[in-house]
């Protein structure tokens, strides 16, 4: 039997195979999934209890710090997506699997799309878990049932953005350690935001300025608005714009890095 091939393996076909691989290998590595669920929830449990007094601050928007803080794990979980996507790709480069892919007709764009599939799989599991655990622990979800798809869409957009950034770093550096080294930077971005208190209640001017400049504040506020306020058009619009812009910029950077890495004659 002679091998019969398509004249040109379309992007869709390649992306489907690579996405399947990304999902399978992510699912087979519990270490990629469990800590990204457990650690943010643990931190939420600590903060919800330890910072419950914050609701006494005049002007605090809710009487439940748990409801206020539930946005935090969504963002923190998305940061782990940077690791997942970037580390997997960097490992492929380091161990030579990338060379194997280079020797096929594979397009770089299909590899990027495929890698993000694994990220989005984890994002789905995370979003469902955080929401269910938060509601079970007593948090309110002001936006109601119609807010759930919006919450998930926002969460996916954020995860995709961080995932694409991880792909960029993985491709540029070819090193899993470099991707891991991003984690503290991401943590800094997360904390120098309105994650712990609303921006207008931050007393230190420099911190308030930093939180205002920090795009992570807007995605946190967008997610939070669904829990605390319900339907805040401005917050949601800003959150989606920031998340989408981050995703687009990161994907462009990742595409350039892919073109360079995938250089073949």
């Amino acid at each position, binding site marked *: 039997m002679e091998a019969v091939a398509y004249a040109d393996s379309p992007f869709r076909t390649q992306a489907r195979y690579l996405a399947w691989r990304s999902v399978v290998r992510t699912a087979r590595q519990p270490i990629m999934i469990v800590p990204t669920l457990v650690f943010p929830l643990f931190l939420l*449990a600590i903060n919800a*209890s*330890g910072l419950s007094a914050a609701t006494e601050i005049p002007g605090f928007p809710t009487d439940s710090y748990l409801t206020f803080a539930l946005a935090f794990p969504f963002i923190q979980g998305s940061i782990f997506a940077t690791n997942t996507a970037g580390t997997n790709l960097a490992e492929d480069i380091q161990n030579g699997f990338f060379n194997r892919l280079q020797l096929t007709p594979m397009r770089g764009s299909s590899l990027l799309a495929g890698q993000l599939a694994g990220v989005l799989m984890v994002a789905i599991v995370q979003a469902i878990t955080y929401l269910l655990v938060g509601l079970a622990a007593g948090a309110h979800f002001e936006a109601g049932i119609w807010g759930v798809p919006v919450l998930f869409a926002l969460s996916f957009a954020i995860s995709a953005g961080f995932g694409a950034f991880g792909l960029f770093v993985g491709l540029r550096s070819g090193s899993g350690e470099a991707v891991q080294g991003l984690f503290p930077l991401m943590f800094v971005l997360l904390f120098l935001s309105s994650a712990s208190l609303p921006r207008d209640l931050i007393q230190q001017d420099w911190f308030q300025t930093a939180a205002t400049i920090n795009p992570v504040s807007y995605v946190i506020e967008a997610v939070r608005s669904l829990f605390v306020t319900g339907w805040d058009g401005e917050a949601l619009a800003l959150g989606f714009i920031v998340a989408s812009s981050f995703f687009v910029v990161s994907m462009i950077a990742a595409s350039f890095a892919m073109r360079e890495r995938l250089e073949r004659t």
Partner: protein
Amino acid sequence: MTAAPRITDRASRRRRYIYAARTVFWRHMHFVFKRPALLLPAMIFPLFFYMAFAGGLSGLSDVPGFDYYDYNAFQFTFVLLQSAAFGGVFIGFSIGADFDSGITRRLFLAVHDRSAVLAGYGAAALVRALMVWAIVFGIALLTGMEVAGSFADLVGLIWLAVVVNVAAFLFAAGMMTRFRTMQAAPAMQIPMFMILMTAPVYVPRDLIEGWVATATEYNPFTAIVESGRSLMAGDPFHVLLAFAAAFGLFALMVIFARRGLRKAEAALA
């Protein structure tokens, strides 16, 4: 592994012990100073936490019942003790890496008393912690932190941090001599993180609600943090209790580390 010949002269034994510990100490310091990527996170993270907590959560000082004199100082004390604890744990990474590479086996073969190897690492942990405290203290003062305690109070606070650092180091040493690989790093970090985060981090104990409030009642680190804050405020409170808790942890960890060392010696023999 054959036993080293007995050295009967006490002064000579002491000299050899110090020499061995100093060699391990210098090797570690030389190694990390040549690789800023290893040194900087341990320095930057405490600074970052101070800025994030003191800067981002300063509004908590408006909560009714919060009567500490300065939120910056409130958080500085926690960050100091947190960096003392994590500074001890970070050295565990180096111990684990040296086990992975086989250098620890060489060190164990070379020295008469193998606890000198751990002593060297412990000294490095303390020196690194002192450097971090100096930097964080300087930045905190520059950014407006008020110090209400006297010089003696601050010395007491530093001593408390030293005991915490040594106890944490001994915990890390005990873990790493048992697991003998850097892969076991989460086994060190997670318990330490849980102990630290179930102390009164953001507000005083009486303003905490929920399960963390219960946890703080039983967490020995609570006494240490509260006493440290009282020293910072110039109003020492339960200092003896705090030192007792710290020394109690220290004593436990000495036993833990010694037993770990015996296990490591047996495994490498």
